[in-house]
């Protein structure tokens, strides 16, 4: 067993509390910047209502949105399989004590056990990185945005133009349903499941940070401008603020494939991360440098 400075269950509880009650700082700055350029009065007043709610949620320590989602975990560096049990206990406790809304149900009977667990839960992605610390991230993903996820298995001949069109259409077809202005996570390449996974992981990348890959950076900027010129606006009611950021990840793919996946994060794009060595734990809602 890996030696941790605190029980993992407590760390998981703290991550769920932080991610549900406090906005990641990069997302907060992006919202404030958006309010600065937004000229549509309905859009502007909605951005004001959002920021007002963010302040209340943090001050009162309440979940900023009632859809506390399904928590998706990413564990990197040093890990072992015993961690799943600790994550389960952390979720069950957070559901009762924060409280979180009990969201998980059987897909067919729709039966809800009230603890946010159930068959196949929790969702934990173990990512081997070789780091000598343990890093655990939670992304509580609400259904409004999750239901708008899109995977397209394009033909290679569709090229970059087809990729761009897929992304723009996914966001504009979703309209107000995923609570725009949010973050657009994109996966390009890989296999189907890898592609969707990359799109979701892209939502963990900081908003406003330059992509180290110049081609992807250019695409991110072009999509960002196009979507904000579309006129969709906050909640699909019009305006210049449709997205706060676009982040893309890519992987190699089959010569006969061109998978593209879009995962939409709502305006809150909730996330929190803890990094643990044997003697200390640090938290961030951005990324560790």
């Amino acid at each position, binding site marked *: 067993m890996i030696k941790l400075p605190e029980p993992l269950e407590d760390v998981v509880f703290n991550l769920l509390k932080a991610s549900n009650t406090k906005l990641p700082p990069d997302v907060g700055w992006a919202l404030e910047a958006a309010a600065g350029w937004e000229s549509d009065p309905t859009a502007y007043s909605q951005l004001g209502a959002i920021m007002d709610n963010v302040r209340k949620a943090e001050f009162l320590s309440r979940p900023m949105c009632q859809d506390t989602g399904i928590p998706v975990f990413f564990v990197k560096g040093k890990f072992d399989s015993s961690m799943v049990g600790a994550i389960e206990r952390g979720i069950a406790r957070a559901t009762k004590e924060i409280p979180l809304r009990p969201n998980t149900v059987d897909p067919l009977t729709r039966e809800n056990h009230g603890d946010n667990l159930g068959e196949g839960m929790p969702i934990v992605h173990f990512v081997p990185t070789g780091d000598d610390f343990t890093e655990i991230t939670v992304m509580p993903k609400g259904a409004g945005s999750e239901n708008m996820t899109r995977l397209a298995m394009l033909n290679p001949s569709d090229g970059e133009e087809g990729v761009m069109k897929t992304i723009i259409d996914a966001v504009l077809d979703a309209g*107000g349903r995923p609570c725009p202005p949010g973050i657009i996570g994109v996966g390009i390449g890989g296999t189907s499941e890898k592609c969707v996974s990359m799109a979701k992981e892209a939502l963990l990348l900081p908003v406003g940070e330059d992509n180290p890959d110049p081609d992807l950076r250019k695409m991110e900027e072009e999509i960002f401008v196009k979507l904000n010129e579309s006129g969709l606006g906050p*909640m699909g009611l019009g305006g210049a603020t449709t997205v706060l950021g676009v982040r893309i990840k890519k992987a190699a793919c089959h010569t006969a494939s061109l998978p593209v996946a879009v995962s939409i994060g*709502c305006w809150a794009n909730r996330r929190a991360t803890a990094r643990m060595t044997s003697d200390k734990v640090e938290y961030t809602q951005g990324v560790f440098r």
Partner: protein
Amino acid sequence: MILVSPLDEKTVRSLRLGDTVYVKGQVITGRDEMHKRALEKARSGEDVPEEIFGSVLYHCGPIMVQRGEKWMPVSAGPTTSARMDSLEPEMIERFGIRAIIGKGGMSREVGEAMKKHGCVYLAAVGGTAVSLAEGLGESKGSEWSDLGMAEAIWKFDAERLGPLIVAMDADGGNLYEDVRGNLKR
């Protein structure tokens, strides 16, 4: 503008697209499972809770906590209304629903039912759940609690629920369609 619920048809028909309003008075929550059950019961001639008739129906599955005898909403923002698209026209027709509060808008068929029977769609700002919970105040009880916290009917005497934007009016106007029709791709 403050709208006092229960609403009459004349008030509802006087609302115009883009108006910002707050709701004071009776509000009930209801989403997927509530819609299904209400219609199943009504179709087979069974009773449904009387609060559904003429209601302001909030598409919301709140987080509720019990404080002593009272149930308080902690976080109570709108859910995506489009999931109820196929059931809402019949809900409006059978129960005379006067206003629907939600996010993301609803289908053209729902808009037609709103026009015919006198109902509006009020858009709440998605994710502003702490503010909206405060606007609702303590719950005045619940129905169908076997459906679970998110799907049950919660009854409120709202203090000042909003801001809400009139996004579909009772005259066939639809702000979402206006925006969609002018999107630049």
